[in-house]
C-alpha cells in the first residue's frame, strides 16, 4: 500500500461515500456548538422539520459573548443575552449537552474539548469557528465551518468536503529560553504568509514540535487558519497520551490500550509525500511581535518597524503602508519603544494553565506599569479553578491584573471587553485585524510571557532577558 500522511489516513477512515465528480462525504466524530454561529442553523432545522442526528456526538458551550465579570448580575447586553438563551433552548429541545454559563466546565470551546478528553487522536472535529484547528494538536483533523455547514452536520453528522492538499511544516532543532510556541507559529506565518496555506492541511513536524507540551501544540495548531490552512495537526505521541489519560471522556482500562495502539498507527508513513514543504530552524526563532494588521506582519522584539518599501510586491508594500497608518506606527521605530495601554492574557490561543503559569512567573513580585490596564481571562472554569489552587490568581491580582471569568473576551470584542479607539494592546490572542479588539483599537500579538513583561514595563521588552 502506498505510504500515507496522517492527514490522508484520518480522511480515508471517515469517508462515508465517494463518487467521481463530487466531494467526499465525510463523517464527523465530534461537533462543537456555541451561541454565535448556531441559532440560524437550529432555526432552519425547525423550519424544515429536520432532527439532530447525533446529539451524543455534539456538545455546546457559551463563550463568544459571555461577560467575564459580574455574571450574577443581569447581562448588560440584551442581544448577547438573547443568543445565550436561544442556545440554551435549542440544546434543551434537541438533547445536546450544554456547558452553560454557571457550569464549572464552561469555557472557550477549543479549550474545553481537549480538557474534557473529548478531543482525541484520529477524530474528525468541526465547529462553527475558524480556530477549530486547535484540536489538531491532539492528532485530530479539525476545521472551522460556517452556519450552513453547522446545520448540515446537525442534520446528517456528515459534511461533503473536497480533499485538501497536504503541507509539511517542519521546525528543527531547539528553542532558546523565552521563545515559545506562539513565537514559532508567528514565524511560520511570516514565512508562509496569510494565504500560503489555502487549500491545505498542515502537519507540524520536527524536534521543536515534538518537544512542545500539548498546550504549546494547541497554540500552534490554533493559528493554522491565520496562514489560510483550514486545519493543522501534530501526530499523537507519548506527550499526547500522557495529556489525555484519565480525562473524563478518554477511553479507560482495556479500551485505553486498544485506543493507544490505533493512535500510534496514525503517524505519517515513511516515504509519504506532501504537496508542499516548509522547514524552519528552531534556533532562528526569537520573541516576536506583530506590527501590522495581519498575523504574518511580525518582527523580532529587538528589531524595528519595517519600511513598507522593503517589501517585494506592490501589494505587500501597499498593505504594509495601510497597516502602519492604522497602527499609527512609523517605519524604523524600535519595537521596544512602542508603549502599550492594555494587556490581554487569554483566548483559545493562549489561555490554558501552562500559559497562565509562564506569565505568572514573569509577573511574580512585580507591578503592572501605572499606564497599563491588564487582564487575565482563563480559558475555562477548570483552568480558572486550577490556577486559583496554584495561587496564580493571587500573583496576577497582587501585580495589578484583573482576574476574570472564562470566555473569548477581548480576543474578538463581542462582549464589553474591548479596546477604546486608539488604544494599543499587547495581546496573546490570534488576530490583529483592524478593529478586531474594538473599533479603532490597535493589537500587537505576542506570547503570554511577552505580554506579561510588557504589562510590567509599559512597552515591549525582550523577555529572554527576564528568563536567564
Amino acid at each position, binding site marked *: 500500500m502506498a505510504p500515507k500522511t496522517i492527514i490522508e489516513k484520518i480522511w480515508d477512515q471517515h469517508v462515508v461515500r465517494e463518487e467521481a465528480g463530487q466531494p467526499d462525504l465525510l463523517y464527523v466524530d465530534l461537533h462543537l456548538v456555541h451561541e454565535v454561529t448556531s441559532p440560524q442553523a437550529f432555526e432552519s432545522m425547525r423550519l424544515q422539520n429536520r432532527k439532530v442526528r447525533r446529539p451524543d456526538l455534539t456538545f455546546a458551550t457559551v463563550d463568544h459573548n459571555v461577560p467575564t465579570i459580574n455574571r450574577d448580575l443581569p447581562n448588560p447586553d440584551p442581544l448577547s443575552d438573547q443568543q445565550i438563551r436561544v442556545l440554551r433552548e435549542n440544546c434543551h429541545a434537541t438533547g445536546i449537552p450544554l456547558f452553560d454559563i454557571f457550569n464549572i466546565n464552561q469555557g472557550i470551546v477549543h479549550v474545553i474539548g481537549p480538557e474534557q478528553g473529548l478531543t482525541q487522536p484520529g477524530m474528525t472535529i468541526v465547529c462553527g469557528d475558524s480556530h477549530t484547528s486547535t484540536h489538531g494538536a491532539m492528532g485530530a483533523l479539525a476545521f472551522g*465551518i460556517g452556519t450552513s455547514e453547522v446545520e448540515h452536520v446537525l442534520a446528517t453528522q456528515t459534511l461533503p468536503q473536497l480533499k485538501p492538499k497536504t503541507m509539511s511544516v517542519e521546525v528543527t532543532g531547539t528553542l532558546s529560553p523565552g521563545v515559545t510556541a506562539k513565537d514559532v507559529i508567528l514565524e511560520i506565518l511570516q514565512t508562509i504568509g496569510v494565504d500560503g496555506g489555502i487549500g491545505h492541511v498542515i502537519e507540524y513536524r520536527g524536534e521543536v514540535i515534538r518537544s512542545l507540551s500539548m498546550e504549546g501544540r494547541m497554540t500552534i495548531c490554533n493559528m493554522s487558519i491565520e496562514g489560510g490552512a483550514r486545519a493543522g495537526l501534530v501526530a499523537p505521541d507519548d506527550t499526547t497520551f500522557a495529556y489525555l489519560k484519565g480525562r473524563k471522556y478518554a477511553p479507560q482500562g482495556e479500551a485505553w490500550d*486498544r485506543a493507544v495502539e490505533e493512535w500510534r498507527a496514525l503517524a505519517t508513513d515513511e516515504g509519504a509525500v506532501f504537496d508542499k514543504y516548509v522547514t524552519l530552524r528552531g534556533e532562528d526563532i526569537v520573541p516576536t511581535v506583530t506590527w501590522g494588521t495581519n498575523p504574518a506582519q511580525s518582527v523580532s522584539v529587538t528589531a524595528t518597524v519595517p519600511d513598507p518599501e522593503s517589501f517585494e510586491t506592490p501589494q505587500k508594500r501597499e498593505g504594509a503602508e495601510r497597516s502602519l497608518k492604522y497602527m499609527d506606527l512609523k517605519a524604523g521605530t524600535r519595537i521596544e519603544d512602542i508603549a502599550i495601554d492594555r494587556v490581554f492574557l487569554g483566548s483559545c490561543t493562549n489561555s490554558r494553565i501552562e500559559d497562565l503559569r509562564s506569565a505568572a512567573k514573569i509577573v511574580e513580585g512585580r507591578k503592572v506599569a501605572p499606564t497599563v490596564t491588564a487582564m487575565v481571562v482563563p480559558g475555562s472554569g477548570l483552568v480558572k479553578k486550577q490556577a486559583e489552587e496554584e495561587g496564580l490568581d493571587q500573583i496576577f491580582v497582587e501585580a495589578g491584573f484583573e482576574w476574570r471569568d472564562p470566555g473569548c473576551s477581548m480576543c474578538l470584542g463581542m462582549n464589553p471587553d474591548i479596546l477604546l479607539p486608539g488604544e494599543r494592546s499587547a495581546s496573546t490572542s490570534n488576530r490583529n485585524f483592524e478593529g478586531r479588539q474594538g473599533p479603532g483599537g490597535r493589537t500587537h500579538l505576542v506570547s503570554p510571557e511577552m505580554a506579561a513583561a510588557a504589562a510590567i514595563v509599559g512597552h515591549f521588552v525582550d523577555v529572554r532577558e527576564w528568563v536567564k
Partner: protein
Amino acid sequence: MHRVEKVRGNAIPLNRADVDTDQIIPAKHLKRIERTGFGPFAFEAWRQDPDFVVNNPAYKDAPILLARQNFGSGSSREHAVWAIEGLGVQAVIAPSFADIFKNNCSKVGLLTIELPQADLDWLMARAEETPAAEIEVDLPSQTVRAGASWERHFEIDPFVKHRLLNGLDDIGLTLQHGDDITKFEEQRSDLKPRTLAAT
C-alpha cells in the same frame, strides 16, 4: 438555496488584498439570530471614510464585487456572506479566496470567481474609470465577459456548479444517502467518545 445562472451589472472595485471577515462584518454585529439584516453593517469601519468605494453612489446596488487575493480571510462567520449579499452583491471576483469563506458562499449561493491577478488589474481599472461599466458572469459556460471583446474562462468545482445552477439544497442531497451514513455508523469504532451516555 436560490438558483444562480447569470449575474450582469456593474462592479465595485474593492482594491485591497487580504480583506478579512472582521472588516466585512465586525464581531459586534454577530449577535443577531437571523440570517438577514447584515447589509447595513458590511464594511462598517471602512465606511466611516466618505471616500471608501462602497460609499460611492455610482456603485450602489452593483451586483458584482471585485477584490484582491485572499478575500474573506479570518473567521468562519457566514454572516460575512450574508452581509455582502445584503449589499446586493451576487458575485465576487478575486485572484483567491479564503477556504471557509468560499465554502460558505457556495452554500448560500453567492458566486466566487477566481481570475488571475492581471485580469483583476484590468477589471479593477475599468470599474474605477467607468463605474457603470458592466460585467457579465455566465455560470453555465464558466465565462466572465466585460465589453464586446474581453472574455475569460473560470474554473469552478463541478458539483458546486451543479448545485448552484439547480438551486439544490446540500442537506437534502446528503439525506438521500442516509443508508450509507447508517452503515458507516454501524462499523464505526466503539472507542470514540460520546457526549451523552448511551441509552
